[in-house]
């Protein structure tokens, strides 16, 4: 089980609700992933809010915990107000906090992120900050009161997998009591497994599942990979070494004799 802000979940896969080919595929993929936490967003809508109503009823049908995001926010003020709108709209004090600093990489503005997280925690939110892999930033977020920290593996939607393994491992070693989630940039189930093998508590996926040729099957593949990665971590992975170490016993090898 994994703990998010005092609640226990059996699934270590968090899934996004965007970019699927159809609403039905979205629902089937979310079910196939086994995810119990689903990210959602909030937007302006001109047509009287009817499309929002349809989407919201599809999500409620799934019986999952929703995690609203502040995607697209570029200032502390926008992010904080969006979080408060999300609390009102979705009836939850959980927020995936995004404060974007750069349009091309969608790199988090970590200075604004810490400021917004501080303000929101003081207002009663459980903040899930989308951040870089920088240890000092993560520690500032923890100091601000975040019980979850969500570093990227690579830029959102890039499918590059873990680009800075040492930094992610350092986060795990230095923040043993914080729920750590790899949030962005994973492209393949093997990437997700690698994150869990490092000891990350969970991964958050969207594009890699939603844009697969068969999103429902890919959701199942990620589910298995996350489970395998976690079991591997709990089982104690062996350390890498530079030279070979024979697995077959050496003593009693036929025809062997000492050469002087």
């Amino acid at each position, binding site marked *: 089980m994994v703990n998010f802000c005092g609640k226990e979940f059996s699934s270590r896969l968090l899934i*996004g*609700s*965007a*970019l*699927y080919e159809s609403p039905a595929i*979205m629902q089937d993929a979310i079910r196939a992933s086994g995810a119990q936490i689903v*990210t*959602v*967003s*909030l*937007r*302006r*809508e*001109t047509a*009287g*809010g*009817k*499309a*929002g*109503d349809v*989407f*919201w009823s599809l*999500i409620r049908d799934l019986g999952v915990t929703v995690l*609203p*995001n502040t*995607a697209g926010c570029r200032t502390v*003020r926008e992010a904080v*107000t969006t979080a*408060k*709108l*999300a*609390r*009102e*709209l*979705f009836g939850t004090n959980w927020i995936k906090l995004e404060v974007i600093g750069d349009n091309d990489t969608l790199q988090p503005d970590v200075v604004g992120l810490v400021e917004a997280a501080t303000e929101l925690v003081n207002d009663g939110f459980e903040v899930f900050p989308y951040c870089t892999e920088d240890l000092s930033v993560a520690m500032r977020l923890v100091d601000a009161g975040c019980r979850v920290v969500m570093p990227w593996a690579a830029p*959102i939607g890039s499918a590059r997998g873990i680009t800075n393994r040492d930094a992610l491992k350092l986060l795990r070693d230095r923040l043993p009591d914080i729920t750590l989630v790899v949030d962005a940039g994973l492209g393949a189930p093997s990437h997700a497994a690698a994150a869990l093998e490092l000891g990350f508590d969970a991964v*958050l996926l*969207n*594009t890699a599942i939603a844009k697969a040729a068969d999103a429902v099957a890919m959701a199942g593949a990620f589910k298995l990979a996350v489970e395998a990665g976690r079991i591997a971590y709990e089982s104690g992975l062996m350390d890498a070494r530079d030279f070979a170490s024979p697995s077959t016993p050496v003593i009693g090898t036929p025809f062997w004799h000492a050469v002087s």
Partner: protein
Amino acid sequence: MRVIVNGEHTEVAAGRVDALLSELDYAGSHVAVAVNFEVVPRTKWADTALNSGDEIEIITPRQGG
């Protein structure tokens, strides 16, 4: 009265948030509202007066990652 609704200058008759939502055809929809960057809870829609030049955000659930 001219206000800004979702970034657009809009001429409206409504003087309160609940009336504005009806006027703009949002009645009965699942929305949240902010006026000048302050969220107005559903329970306060009927009591919240609008003033000329107010910036109003009306937002709905949407897919997100």
